[in-house]
């Protein structure tokens, strides 16, 4: 697929534009906060506790006088690391297990299928808490637990997808062209199941953001010297009766990030499937893909032939 066409399709959708926009902001914040934050997020000052939002403290301060904006800003790093790492682990575990569970010799694939079903029954958050209790709370624990936990879900979904694709005529045709199992997987199976995996991947990243926040909230996640939205939420919620406004900021950050990931997943799925695209994206259609009709005038009001856009974009016959 042409990369430019994909990005255009993605940004054309409101979900995609919002997802890309918000997540870009988060990733940029994460990068910048490694080197610079407005104020030191861990700098306490009892004399400036519970300041209301102002220019110097856009989100106000907390019970020990820390600047909430700086803290939320610094915590983006934790979120990004956890989400990306869990996403990678989940995809590798998921697609790997799914391929083993569908394209191998009968006894291998059936044992793997049973293994997947057993692992699906394990609740991810409880595993994370058990691991944290055993090895101490850390981001690695969150990543491993969510990555493997969600990877199994991805495996279950993609296994049935792979089996469906493996039965198609085009896979038979590919084998008749001399492709081996690995090449069939790479060239035909993965591109065809990618939309499903991408949606699952975005869900797993969203889950990992929530899981990190949840575990940190409970004290099992990020260690004390790591800024985390969940930890901040837990610090602030003790005072929710007195200072309800402060809790909003980490809560909003978590909610918007999870929402952005979910919406982006849907948008990527729609944009990556050539069959779901509204327009023909091949070369040689002058003007049609990148220039939407001017919004002021309805298309039929333009002079015939002026736009140069073919009226039947789909089928060439």
């Amino acid at each position: 697929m042409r990369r430019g066409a994909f990005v255009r399709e993605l940004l054309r959708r409101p979900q995609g534009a919002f997802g890309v926009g918000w997540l870009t902001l988060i990733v940029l914040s994460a990068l910048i906060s490694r080197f610079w934050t407005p104020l030191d997020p861990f700098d306490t000052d009892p004399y400036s506790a519970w300041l209301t939002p102002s220019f110097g403290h856009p989100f106000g301060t907390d019970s020990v006088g820390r600047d909430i904006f700086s803290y939320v800003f610094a915590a983006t790093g934790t979120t990004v690391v956890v989400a990306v790492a869990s996403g990678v682990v989940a995809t590798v575990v998921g697609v790997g297990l799914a391929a083993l569970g569908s394209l191998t010799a009968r006894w291998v694939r059936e044992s793997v299928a049973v293994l997947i079903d057993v692992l699906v029954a394990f609740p991810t958050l409880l595993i994370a808490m058990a691991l944290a209790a055993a090895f101490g709370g850390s981001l690695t624990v969150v990543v491993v637990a969510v990555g493997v936990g969600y990877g199994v879900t991805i495996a279950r979904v993609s296994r049935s997808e792979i089996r469906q694709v493996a039965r198609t005529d085009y896979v038979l045709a590919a084998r008749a062209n001399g492709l081996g199992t690995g090449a069939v997987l790479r060239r035909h199976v993965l591109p065809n199941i990618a939309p499903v995996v991408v949606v699952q991947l975005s869900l797993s990243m969203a889950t990992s953001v929530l899981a990190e926040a949840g575990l940190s909230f409970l004290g099992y996640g990020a260690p004390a010297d790591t800024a985390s939205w969940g930890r901040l939420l837990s610090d602030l919620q003790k005072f929710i009766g007195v200072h309800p406004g402060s809790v909003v900021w980490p809560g909003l950050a978590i909610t918007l990030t999870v929402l952005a990931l979910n919406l982006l997943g849907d948008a990527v799925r729609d944009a990556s499937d050539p069959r779901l695209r509204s327009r023909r994206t091949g070369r040689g259609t002058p003007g049609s893909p990148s220039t939407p009709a001017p919004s002021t005038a309805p298309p039929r009001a333009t002079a015939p032939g002026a736009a140069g856009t073919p009226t039947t974009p789909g089928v060439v016959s």
Partner: protein
Amino acid sequence: MSLVIDDLTVTVGDRRVVDGLSLDVPDGARVGLIGESGSGKSMTTLAVLGLLPDGARATGSIRLDGRELLGASERELAGLRGRVVGTVFQDPRTALDPVVTVGRQIAEPLRLHGRVGRRDARARAVAAAAEVGLPDPETVVDLYPHQLSGGQRQRVGIAMALINRPGLVLADEPTTALDVTTQAEVLALFQRLVDEQRTSLLFVTHDLAVLSRITDHAAVLSHGRVVERGPVEQLLHRPEHEVTRGLVEATRATTWRAS
């Protein structure tokens, strides 16, 4: 390239779907294999390719230019598929990958067996698309299958099967899923290419009328057995076995209805 099938038996579970089939496709010849659906035609082509479904077992002998294919290693077979043996499948709606561009699919056997770079592969795909009569080949190679008509997709399938100039082409009902007009065009194309490349052809179909246009000799298959064989003209005009007669009747009926 010659194909000799000798006493081929394919069993699925305890059912014999192909039962002691013998068939010769001499070098450069075009041979038809005709039968009703379920008579074991497709299983025969799959057996030649070594791509029988799970649970199916083949015994007997299949020799390609004297080289035994039954029991050959997967690696050896994979090296033949798409290079020495080209295959055209029945339904062009499902035999092309929906998310891969037409050009990349046409060039796939080439890139796999020929160590051809991306740019060369594209140029060859464009040339192949032109050869099978696809309109505007430079543009068409960047389209996805759903943007083509059924007949065009089958042309893509043919281009893909022939791009490595195989010595043997297996055609599994390549015109069945097409409408009558398109069928005639695709058959004419097929005939021309097979002539030009002097490739041997095993053409599988249930339609005697189609067969009579493209092959000289044919074997009639019923319940996995060859019940009659001979020149297509003879099968068409002096059928001996009742299955052949049934196929002739069916052909007359459709031809009559079509005209």
